[in-house]
Each structure stands twice: as C-alpha cells, then as structure tokens.
C-alpha cells in the first residue's frame, strides 16, 4: 500500500513536470501552428541564466524571475529574427529550423556555461511530508510544481478562450491571410505566442532542474515525454497537455515501480500508440480533422 501511494505521488509530480513542458509546446502550436523542437534547449539556457545568478549569491526567486524574463525575450527574438523569415513559405521549413536551433543552442550552452554538472536548488524543500510516522513521497517542491503548472494551465485557458488577444492569436495561427485582412497584426501575435511559450518552457526548465543536476543535456530526458504528453492531450489543448502529462507520469511510474524501469520508454510509446489509435487527434483535441 505504501509503495502504491509512493508510486502514485511520484508519478503525479513527475507527470506535472512533463505537463509543464507540454504546455509550452501546446502554446506554440496554438499560436503559430509550429512544433518547436528547440523548446528544451531554449529553456535550458534560461535555467543556466538563473543558475549564474543563484551561484553569485542572489536569491532563488530572483533567479526564477530572471529565467522567466529571459525566456520571454529569447522567445520573441527567435520568432522575430529567425522563424519569421521562413514561416511564410511553409510550416515545415520553420520546424526544420527549430531542429537546427536545437543543435546550435546546445552547443552554445556548452561553450558559455561549460558541460560539467551543477546542482540547482529547489524551493520549499525536498523532504517528504510526515503523515503520522510515515513519510509520504510528496515534497514541498512537488506541491510547488503541481501548483504552478495548474496555475499556468488556468491562465492559458483564460487567455485563449476569454481574451481578445487570445482570439487574435488563434486566428493568426489558423489563417494568416484572413487575419491580416481583418486588421490583426499577425506578426505581433506570432512574436507574442513564441514569447509566452518560451516563458512556460523556462518554467518547465526550472521545475525539472529543481533539486537535481544541471548540464546542457539535462532536459533531454524529459523532452520526449513532454512531447508524448502534448500529443496525448491533443496538441491544441492546455487542459489536454496537463491531463496527458498526468496520465503519462502515472502510467510510467506504475510501470517503473511494478514492472521494471527498463520498460518505461517502451511503455510511453505503447501508451501513445494506444491513445492515437482510438483518438487520432489526441484526447482533448478540439479539431479532429482539418475541415474546409
């Protein structure tokens, strides 16, 4: 029983971490119809910026804010000066470009920050809470992770469904030309989408780093699961990303705990296949096929 609870709690917390990354992917997809393969290294760089500040003696929260802020700037710069030039021709060009950015940013990070492993602090503590005389596998940091991801998800839902800006962003992604004719400043919407996605990506980078070790490839393990979580939920839906992340985290944790950790990658692909066979658009996809 104890093991089951531990497995579930670990799975939920881990799942939220995947969900954070998935949210960034969903945001870029919703705002620009592009899958951003460079999301992880972009987040990694901003986490390094936070680390530099924290190692220099500043508080964790200052580093946190710096990471989110530099994410905002980085996302806007990448869209405005890199993606913008290929986007109008075809979306696949932009996606390939993000693959190229993935490689370039990785290399840059190793050059600037070095490849050695550095530890990253976790706010609110890494000790499990005491319930009676057992320690449950839920830490202060874990609660912070779950809470912050849910808050971000809520904000994104409100942004897209309830605000004029969200409507303009969606329109720019669905049909650029019509949006332009209606007076939407499409360029600005695309930059905004990338900037916001990068902020969410930075958050996920900080959550993954917390209590662990940071090095240029530290996020790569999560990236695949983050993508799977995003696709599971239907690339279109913030709620789906979180649901996908939780389901994935739980399932993988159960597999790891009861079957064997070597089977985890296989299990994740198995889950992906199973869901897509039944719901090709993902669980929460609002658009199943492109209708005209």
């Amino acid at each position, binding site marked *: 029983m104890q093991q089951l609870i531990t497995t579930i709690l670990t799975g939920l917390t881990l799942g939220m971490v995947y969900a954070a990354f998935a949210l960034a992917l969903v945001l870029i997809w919703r705002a620009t119809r592009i899958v951003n393969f460079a999301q992880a290294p972009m987040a990694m760089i901003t986490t390094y910026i936070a680390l530099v500040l924290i190692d220099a003696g500043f508080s964790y929260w200052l580093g946190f804010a710096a990471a989110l802020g530099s994410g905002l700037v980085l996302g806007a710069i990448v869209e405005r000066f890199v993606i913008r030039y290929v986007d109008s021709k075809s979306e696949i060009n932009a996606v390939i470009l993000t693959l190229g950015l993935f490689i370039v940013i990785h290399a840059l990070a190793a050059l600037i920050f070095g490849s050695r492993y550095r530890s990253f602090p976790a706010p609110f503590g890494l000790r499990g809470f005491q319930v009676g005389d057992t320690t449950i596998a839920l830490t202060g940091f874990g609660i912070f992770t779950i809470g912050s991801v849910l808050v971000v998800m809520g904000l994104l839902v409100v942004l897209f469904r309830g605000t004029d800006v969200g*409507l303009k962003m969606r329109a720019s992604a669905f049909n650029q030309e019509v949006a332009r004719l209606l007076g939407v400043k499409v360029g600005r919407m695309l930059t905004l989408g990338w900037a916001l996605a990068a902020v969410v990506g930075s958050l996920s980078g900080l959550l993954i780093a917390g209590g662990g070790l940071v090095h240029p490839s530290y996020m790569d393990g999560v990236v695949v699961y983050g993508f799977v979580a995003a696709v599971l939920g239907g690339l279109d839906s913030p709620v789906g990303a979180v649901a996908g992340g939780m389901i994935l985290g739980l399932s993988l944790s159960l597999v790891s705990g009861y079957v064997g950790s070597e089977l985890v990658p296989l299990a994740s692909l198995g889950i992906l296949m199973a869901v897509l066979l039944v719901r090709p658009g993902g669980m929460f996809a609002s658009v199943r096929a492109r209708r005209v």
Partner: protein
Amino acid sequence: MLTVTDLSAGYGPVTALDGVSFEAPEGEITAVLGANGAGKTTLLRTISGLVRPTRGTATLAGRDLTKVPTEHMTRIGLGHVPEGRGVITELTVEENLRLGGLGSGSRVRVGDLGRAYSLFPILAERRRSSAHVLSGGERQMLVIARALLAKPRVLLLDEPSLGLAPRIVVQIFELLRTLVRADGLTVVLVEQNARSALSIADRGVVLNLGRLVVADDASALAKDEQLRHAYLGF
C-alpha cells in the same frame, strides 16, 4: 471614393493586372466583371495590399493605399472579403464576428454584434456553433457581417455568389443593396455572374486579360449585347 490609377501587378513573370484605371463612386456598387483569369481577384488583392503593385496607385478618399500595409486597411476604412469567403472554420460563428471588430483598433461592443445578429438572424441561431457547419450561403453572410463590424467605408467583395444556389444569391445581393442604401457603403463587387451583378450595380468595369475593356454605368453595360456576348457570357 476609391480611385484606381494605372494599377499593375503580377506574380513573377506573369502580369495579371496591366494599367487598370477606374473610379468607384461613394455610396454606389461598382461591379468588376470579366472571364476567369481577367485579373479581377488580383485587382482586389492589390488594392488591399496582399499583392504588391508594380506600377500605379489606388487611393481611398485621397489616401494612397499602396503605401499602407494590409493590417492597417480596416483602420482606414477598407474591408476585403476574399475569394473563397475566408471563414475561419476552426472558430465559432461568434468568434469570427468578434474578430471582425477587433482589427480596427476599437473594442467590439455588444451592440455591434447585436446589429449583425438582427441583420442576419441565421447567424444568431448558430452563434456558438463551429463555423464549419455553416452552409455556403450562411458563410457568405458571416463574412459580410464580419467585414461590416469594422465599419468600413469601402467594401471589396470577391465573388460572393460562387457556389451558391440562385435563390440565395438573390437574397445576398438584395442584402448588399439594402446595406449600401442604409449606410452609404461603397462596394466593389467582383463577379463572374455578370447578369446578377449588373442587376444591383450602379457602375460596371469590365476586365480582360488584365486590362480594362470598358467602364460605364451598369445599365449601359447590360444593354450592350455585343459586349455581353464577348466578355460577360450572356
């Protein structure tokens, strides 16, 4: 109101529009007619800035449109309903309409949507539906209503009758005529269905292979049998 002077444009080596000049007077419907490939759609796209002209100008109340980026067109009073209607099928009917009011820089007041719904009751019925369930005629009404929410002074319409049953075409054209009379809207109506277009238009402009053939009162064009047979198909 809208003056086109020696406007030329093309796609690479192909010249689609060659030195076209005409005037669309204020408060009137000007039909732009001609066969497939005559340059009608290119004309509208060049006016609204989607295509860059190689020569010539288009002015709206004296303001040079060729210097204005497409995103600013609604702000200066130009609306363009493109070929194919441009319904954003992933959004709901109401979201499409709201979008129409957002681009011109002012907030959409509930009253504005209310007017759209009273003009087009079928849209009110379907306001929460995804736009892709609308029929062709309903979609045409949606995009016209959407364009009107920006309160344009000039409305460019590209083949609104395309793919619609004759009965619906009559309905929509009647609606257009009412809007023009009521709001003093200036309409430039591109149509292959020359007969219907001329029945509601005040002026007519005929294009062939990118060039202007004739610009005259609609009634004069409708009476000219030779012209009709040669360029307009009836």
